[in-house]
Each structure stands twice: as structure tokens, then as C-alpha cells.
């Protein structure tokens, strides 16, 4: 194995051993595609999934003569993101050109912000699994534009490597991006991977609450680059921050929360392995491979990184007025952490229940389900059951899964209503939910179509009970003798006889009554 390849798990230094010798320092760069109706610098639509090259114009195609004009909402979104991250808003900022050639970048420069970003110096307090808070300092957030997308044709895998040629679609070119850059994250120690995940997750929650992006990592509307470096652990009594930083690697396009954590962990173990052999870490870009959980070498930093930034002459400076900033501040939503605490109190969830809901990403679903008439307990029970299990099995978050199969908060609220009204018991309700998840319609429609309903006719229940007692005289005797717990066997038979549609509680009461224990 050489430096240029990913080290396999066997070649790595064990995680605990890494921490015994080194202190990890991280940096995170998160790109967020804004959910504006139009692109950053032109009026082309931004809708996802359109036919290739149908959302383009002279500006975003980089045709000769075309000129950019800044999207007002994109600027406001960037400012709102900055304010939500406790950043200062620059009274005067500019766009710059970042010059490099790449076929999916129409002008061969990216219009971005360089040394004059719109917002800078803020923080996000992230809550960790053990309930403690870790402050991640924000260096800056700036506006820029996305590139087009290439399809690689030929070659073995359809990936860029070995492709014969590529086909470029510029629909994504010019989509507004905000890049959020942290300051070096020090002092996270063994929790560094968790801090990275929690930061990206809670940043996602914040952006979602701001309603500035659909923040879907799997669709690429939120992407994280992870910088990791190791420095020797300070000796006892020595200041860790007096130890100089190690060489960092930048792992690009880590596209899920879990992968952020895994990538940091992997890079820490790989760095330690390289260092333990007496080799040097190469400052380079690395690629994360979701399938193998490894990173591989991209290209080293070089002269080609001379981006020749200069102020974009086709755009004028952005100088947000104090009034605008204050107006935007007034539109900020309740901070997610505060909102979580409020909802937990309102819903009466335990810490553990709330954390499960958060980890499943089901807060908004439950909120909407409660708003649709369900009880908080019921909403949690139904969403955290089968839908979450299935979403997990498909490595999706429950929101995405629910959207994909078409199950809505209204469905779940209706389902709980059917139980509360006595039409269904939990067991039948689970069958109804199966139908809803299979796309068979609303809860009521599924129950109707499948003929699922508790036996309400007391005569029919009585008849079933009498038959079961008659068929099981031994058990009946035991119950008559006071062994009430034996009733379970009879209840099971009653349920079987009624194809599960009896109300188990009523059946139990009736059995006991018949056998003199009522």
C-alpha cells in the first residue's frame, strides 16, 4: 500500500491508540444549495430533475457577451444563514472570480467570494449524544455558484476514471450555493468524529428551520468537505494548543451524516498509520468511498491551485443596509436547540425518546402529525415503528422514506384515530399501516379495503367465547379455579376464531365473566 491509496481497515491504527498519541484537529466546509426559484446570477429555474440543458440561458451557459445579475433572495438567504450562526454581516462585500478550467464550469471561472465574504465569525453550539454542548466556531459563509453535471461514458465503471468522453448538462450550473466554513475545531479529542456528525446534522436542522434549502445530502443539495489533521498529544501539563498543527487532508463530498463521522474517524486512523511508519502526510484532496468506507488520494495541492482570484468586474459590491439586516434578523426562526427543548416539554417525551426521534429525523413529521390531531405519544409510536424501521433498512431518513412511499402525517393521525375510536386495535392498525406504506391509500381506505375492523357485534364475540370455552374444558376449569392468567390461551383462540378482529380486552373480560371471575 502506498500513500496514494486508501489504507484498508487492517492497516490502520486502532482508534484508541490514535488518541493515546495524537490530538485531532478538524475543519468542516459545508456547501448548501439554496432553495431559490432561480439561479444565483440569472433567471433560470432551479427545479431538480429537469431534462438536460432545459434550464439554461446565455448567462449560466457562459455564452460570450452574457452578464450576471445577483439574485436578491440568495443574498438575503446568505445573510439569514449568517445571522442564525451568530456571524457578523459585512457592511460591504464583493464577488470574486476563481479561475480554473473545468468542462462543467461554463465560464472557466467560478463566481464566488474570496477575501470579502458576506458574513464572518460566528458559531454553532452543537449538542452531543451525552447531552453536552460543543461550540463550533464559524470562520465565514460566502455565496458562490454550482457547476454543471457530467455523465461519464465508456470505461469500466462509468466513473470519471477511464471514461472515453463525458456528456455535460448545465442545468445545475449557476445554482446558488452558500459555503459555510468552520474555524479549526480543536479539543474534541475522541469525540471528534461525533462532533463532526453533530455539527453537520444540527447545521442541517438550522438550515431547514431557516427554510433556505431543502438540505438533502443524498441529492447533493448539502455537501460536506472534511479536513482532518493530527498533532502529537501534549505532554502532561503542557498546553495542547502550543503544539503546531499537523498537515491536513481534505476529504471531499461526504454525502451523509453517518459518513461524515466515518470519514473523520477513518482519516484519523489513516493519518496515525502513516505517521507511525515515519512517513509524512501529503497535503491533498481525498475522495470518500461510501461503499468501502475508505478515502483515496485525489490530487496534491499544486501550482494548479493558483486560482488567480480578482474582484468580479461584472458585479457591483453587496452592501447590506442596517435596516435590511435587522429586517432579516426578525425573520429568524426559533433556534433548533431551543425548539427541541420546547417540543420535548410539550410532548412529554423522555430524554431517550426525544433523542430517538431526533436521530430518526422525525421531529417535523411528529409535529405535523400532532397538528393533524394525533397525540404526541401516538405520533411517536407510529412513526418510530415500522416507517423508521423500513427507512433505516433502506439507509434513508424517515422523512425521505415517507415522501417516497407517500405516507403523510395525516395518514398517521387518522390511523391513531381509528384505534382511539375502537375500530382497530394495535395489531390491526399495524396491518393498516402496512397497507398505507404499500401505497394502498388512506388509513380508512386500507381498513375498508382489507375488511379490517374489531368485532363490534357483542353477540358474535359471545358466541366465539362460548365456543372456545366449550372446546377447552381443561383450561376453563383452571380459570374457574382462579388461575386467571390461563385466560391468555383462550383469548388467543378467540382472536384466531375472529381472524384477529376481536377486541382482546373485551374478549378477556367476557371469558372471565363466563367463568365466574368477572
Amino acid at each position, binding site marked *: 500500500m502506498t500513500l496514494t491509496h486508501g489504507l484498508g481497515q487492517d492497516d490502520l491504527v486502532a482508534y484508541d491508540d490514535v488518541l493515546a498519541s495524537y490530538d485531532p484537529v478538524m475543519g468542516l466546509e459545508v456547501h448548501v444549495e439554496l432553495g431559490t426559484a432561480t439561479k444565483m446570477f*440569472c433567471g433560470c429555474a432551479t427545479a431538480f430533475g429537469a431534462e438536460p440543458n432545459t434550464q439554461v440561458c446565455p448567462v449560466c451557459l457562459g455564452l460570450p457577451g452574457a452578464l450576471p445579475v445577483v439574485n436578491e433572495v440568495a443574498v438575503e438567504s446568505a445573510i439569514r444563514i449568517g445571522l442564525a450562526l451568530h456571524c457578523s454581516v459585512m457592511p460591504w462585500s464583493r464577488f470574486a472570480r476563481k479561475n480554473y478550467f473545468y468542462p462543467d464550469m461554463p465560464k472557466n471561472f467560478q463566481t464566488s467570494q474570496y477575501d470579502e465574504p458576506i458574513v464572518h465569525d460566528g458559531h454553532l453550539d452543537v449538542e452531543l449524544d451525552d447531552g453536552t454542548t460543543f461550540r463550533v466556531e464559524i470562520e465565514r459563509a460566502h455565496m458562490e455558484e454550482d457547476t454543471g453535471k*457530467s455523465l461519464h461514458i465508456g470505461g469500466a465503471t462509468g466513473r*470519471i476514471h477511464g*471514461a472515453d468522453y*463525458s456528456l455535460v448538462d448545465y442545468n445545475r450550473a449557476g445554482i446558488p450555493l452558500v459555503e459555510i466554513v468552520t474555524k479549526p475545531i480543536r479539543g474534541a479529542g475522541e469525540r471528534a468524529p461525533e462532533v463532526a456528525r453533530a455539527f453537520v446534522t444540527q447545521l442541517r436542522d438550522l438550515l431547514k428551520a431557516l427554510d433556505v434549502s431543502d438540505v438533502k445530502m443524498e441529492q447533493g443539495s448539502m455537501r460536506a468537505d472534511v479536513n482532518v489533521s493530527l498533532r502529537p498529544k501534549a505532554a502532561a501539563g503542557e498546553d495542547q494548543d502550543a503544539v503546531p498543527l499537523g498537515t491536513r487532508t481534505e476529504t471531499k463530498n461526504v454525502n451523509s451524516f453517518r459518513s461524515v463521522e466515518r470519514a473523520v474517524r477513518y482519516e484519523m486512523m489513516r493519518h496515525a498509520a502513516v505517521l507511525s511508519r515515519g512517513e509524512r502526510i501529503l497535503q491533498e484532496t481525498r475522495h470518500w468511498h461510501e461503499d468501502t468506507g475508505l478515502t483515496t488520494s485525489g490530487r496534491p495541492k499544486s501550482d494548479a491551485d493558483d486560482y488567480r482570484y480578482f*474582484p468580479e468586474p461584472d458585479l457591483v459590491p453587496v452592501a447590506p443596509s442596517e435596516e435590511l439586516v435587522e429586517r432579516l434578523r426578525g425573520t429568524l426562526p426559533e433556534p433548533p436547540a431551543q425548539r427541541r427543548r420546547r417540543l420535548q416539554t410539550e410532548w412529554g417525551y423522555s430524554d431517550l425518546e426525544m433523542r430517538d426521534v431526533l436521530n430518526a429525523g422525525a421531529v417535523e413529521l411528529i409535529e405535523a402529525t400532532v397538528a393533524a390531531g394525533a397525540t404526541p405519544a401516538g405520533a411517536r409510536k407510529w412513526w418510530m415503528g415500522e416507517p423508521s424501521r423500513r427507512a433505516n433498512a433502506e439507509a434513508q431518513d424517515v422523512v425521505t422514506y415517507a415522501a417516497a412511499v407517500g405516507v403523510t402525517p395525516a395518514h398517521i393521525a387518522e390511523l391513531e384515530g381509528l384505534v382511539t375510536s375502537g375500530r382497530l386495535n394495535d395489531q390491526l392498525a399495524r396491518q393498516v399501516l402496512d397497507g398505507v406504506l404499500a401505497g394502498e391509500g388512506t388509513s380508512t381506505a386500507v381498513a375498508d379495503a382489507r375488511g379490517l375492523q374489531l368485532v363490534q357485534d357483542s353477540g358474535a364475540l359471545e358466541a366465539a367465547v362460548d365456543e372456545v370455552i366449550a372446546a377447552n374444558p381443561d383450561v376453563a376449569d383452571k380459570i374457574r379455579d382462579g388461575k386467571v392468567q390461563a385466560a391468555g390461551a383462550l383469548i388467543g383462540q378467540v382472536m384466531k376464531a375472529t381472524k384477529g378482529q376481536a377486541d382482546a380486552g373485551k374478549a378477556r373480560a367476557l371469558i372471565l365473566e363466563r367463568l365466574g371471575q368477572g
Partner: protein
Amino acid sequence: MALSRDDVAHLASLARIELGEAELDRMLGELSVILDSVAKVQQAPTEGVEPMSHPMPLTNVTRPDEVRPGLSAPEALSGAPEQEQQRFLVPRILDEE
């Protein structure tokens, strides 16, 4: 500031221009003369002077976030040297790995 032949070759590569050997030599000579001349800016009394990037002091020119009609795909692709599947066909992109 003396410019070397390697410098010019490097700049040409940054600018994606494949210069031939003879062209490189000629360019080196011409650029050196021009650079000597433009280096005059360094003699100007610019201490404390703010750089000027735009001739007009405008700020905050934005447009509303409203969709405007763009080009049709055939119009967009009308100048393409090669196309396939309604996309621009470009030669293989050098691998980063």
C-alpha cells in the same frame, strides 16, 4: 521582474494554451519587454490609496428571484462542437485519482 522560459510555459499551461517551442521563445522576449514597461505602475505614489476595481461606485444591484425564460435545449446546444443525449459532448476529463 525577469521572466524565465519555464515561467512562460507554466503560465501558458495555466491559461490552457499549448505553445510550441518557437512560440515560447518569441513570447518570452515580447512579454519581457512589455513587463518591463508596465512595471512602471510600481513607481506611482500609491501609498494609502484604495484599489479601484469598478469605474462607477454602484452597490446592491440585484434582481428579483423570478424565473425568466431562457434558451431551449436546441438553442443552448446550437454551437456545440459535438453533442449527444441533449448534452454537450466533451473529451474525457482527466482523472483526479
